[in-house]
């Protein structure tokens, strides 16, 4: 039988959950970025499933735009990672603690 929409969404949600967990738990900026990529990938999965369920191209068009946005975000994120490594000698977001209240 064909895949029901709920199954596709279930898979997407699981993927999203893993990505979110990675982004919430891991301390390295690199892994935060990886987690966000996984979350966006899950969003793509749900969009394509929705597109199939409603038999219309909108979801896939959104998927394409989201892909480009993900690429742009990752480029900026990685260059900030490089920047932090060069100037602050760290890639761990938890080591950045000079800005804080008293």
């Amino acid at each position, binding site marked *: 039988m064909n895949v029901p929409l709920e199954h596709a969404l279930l898979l997407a949600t699981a993927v999203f959950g893993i990505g979110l967990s990675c982004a919430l738990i891991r301390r390295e900026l690199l892994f935060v970025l990886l987690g966000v990529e996984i*979350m966006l990938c899950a969003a*793509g999965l749900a969009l394509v499933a929705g597109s199939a369920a409603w038999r219309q191209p909108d979801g896939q068009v959104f998927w394409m735009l989201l892909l480009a946005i993900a690429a742009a975000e990752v480029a900026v*994120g990685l260059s900030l990672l490089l920047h932090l490594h060069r100037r602050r000698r760290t890639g761990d977001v938890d080591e950045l603690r000079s800005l804080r209240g008293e």
Partner: protein
Amino acid sequence: MTHADLLGALPTLALCAGALAVLVLGRLTRRRAVIEALAMLSIAAAALLAVLLPELPATAGGMFSPGGNGRLFVVFFSLLGAIAILASTRYGREHGFSTGEYDALILFACAGMCWLASAASAWGFVIGLSSFTLALYVLIAFARDGGAGSEAAAKYLSMGMIAGGMLAFGLALLYAAAGTLDLSRLASASSAGAAPPFSLLGMALVLAALAFKISLAPFHLWTPDVYQGAPAPVAGLLSGGSKAAVLAGLLVLLPAGAISGAVQKLLLALAALSLLWGTLAALRQTDLKRLLAYSSVVQMGTAAIGLLAGNRAGAQAVAFYLVFYGLAAAGSFAFLAALANTADEPERLEDLRGLGFRRPLVALGLAVCMLAFAGIPPTGGFFAKLQVFAAAVLAGQWEIAVAGVLAAFVSVAYYLRVIMLLYMSDEAAPERPRPHLAETLAVLLPALLLLLLGVAPGLLMDWIGAGM
């Protein structure tokens, strides 16, 4: 692509084209004055086009709607961009922002805010949001000395990207449930009784992501750190512009009845928590930037009260509120930029002592912004708050309106403290640079507009009313 599509996109295209031109010019000359002049020119062009273009129907695949409040917000965000550029004339030179990238990114951030404010569909919303967020990530870390800016950017980026992922996935779920990307249809379909439970998941994710963006408690924890670390002109854009853009993008949802049921309860809880948390935390701040951060939590909680009204009156009140809030935030941060030297900004409250006499004009501007934040007439802040509360009360949201009134009352204590310090005796206060014309303008312009909004709020209300 039609002729009308192109016309509708012209104002934001002017901003983008200006950004490109500034980028190229930055390669040809190192004179910031020339670059800034070009940037201001494109901002003026965008604002003029937005005012002059004839009314247009919603177009462009339903992605953006060029008419109505979209055009008002083009003017508004152009103004905020202009204030940021004016405020960073000297600041930028002293911090090595000499090439065109800085001004180009500011222009592009403004374009992104305009897109978001006029978004009619989920993809327009995401594109607009990502555009200015991305520009802000870079702008916050723009001073490349590895100082506070890069830390602030790392914090904002790591949190902001998570929120971006949540927003994208949430919208995807809503799309899967409703089969449309049109924002108002999406909203009304999702709030209908028959919506599947996974669309509630989508709603929760979208709401959490947006609450993060506009710093509603408990998603606001990043705000003070990021404001503190960001360069003051950028922090003004971040505080005034990005929050206003997100809320402006939501206004289209209100007449569609999206704020109802479980979502309304959640938003109510967020607003109440923000009012309480922000107010109490702000009382104890000793750093003006952190104070402004917590104040933005309270202000956004108040704006959320208008959203809770969930009708056209609420949407109009929130639109007015955003304009006031954006102006006051931009003015306050422009003050910090105007008195910044290469080492620091006068952000500790103690640094403000006596500036009311030594730097009377900019200090007056800050004082007006503070009065506006506190909601004291005859500033626009009074009207903004009054309308938000009235809209909520008329919609039957009594309790939260009273909470907002109380928060506004307590807020007077911390805003007034800033004014008091400005006009206190000034023994042994460190010397601050003398702001020049552009910087003074960057502070006084929002202050004057706030006063104008207080004396003749009808000017703006008519415009907002015409757009809705």
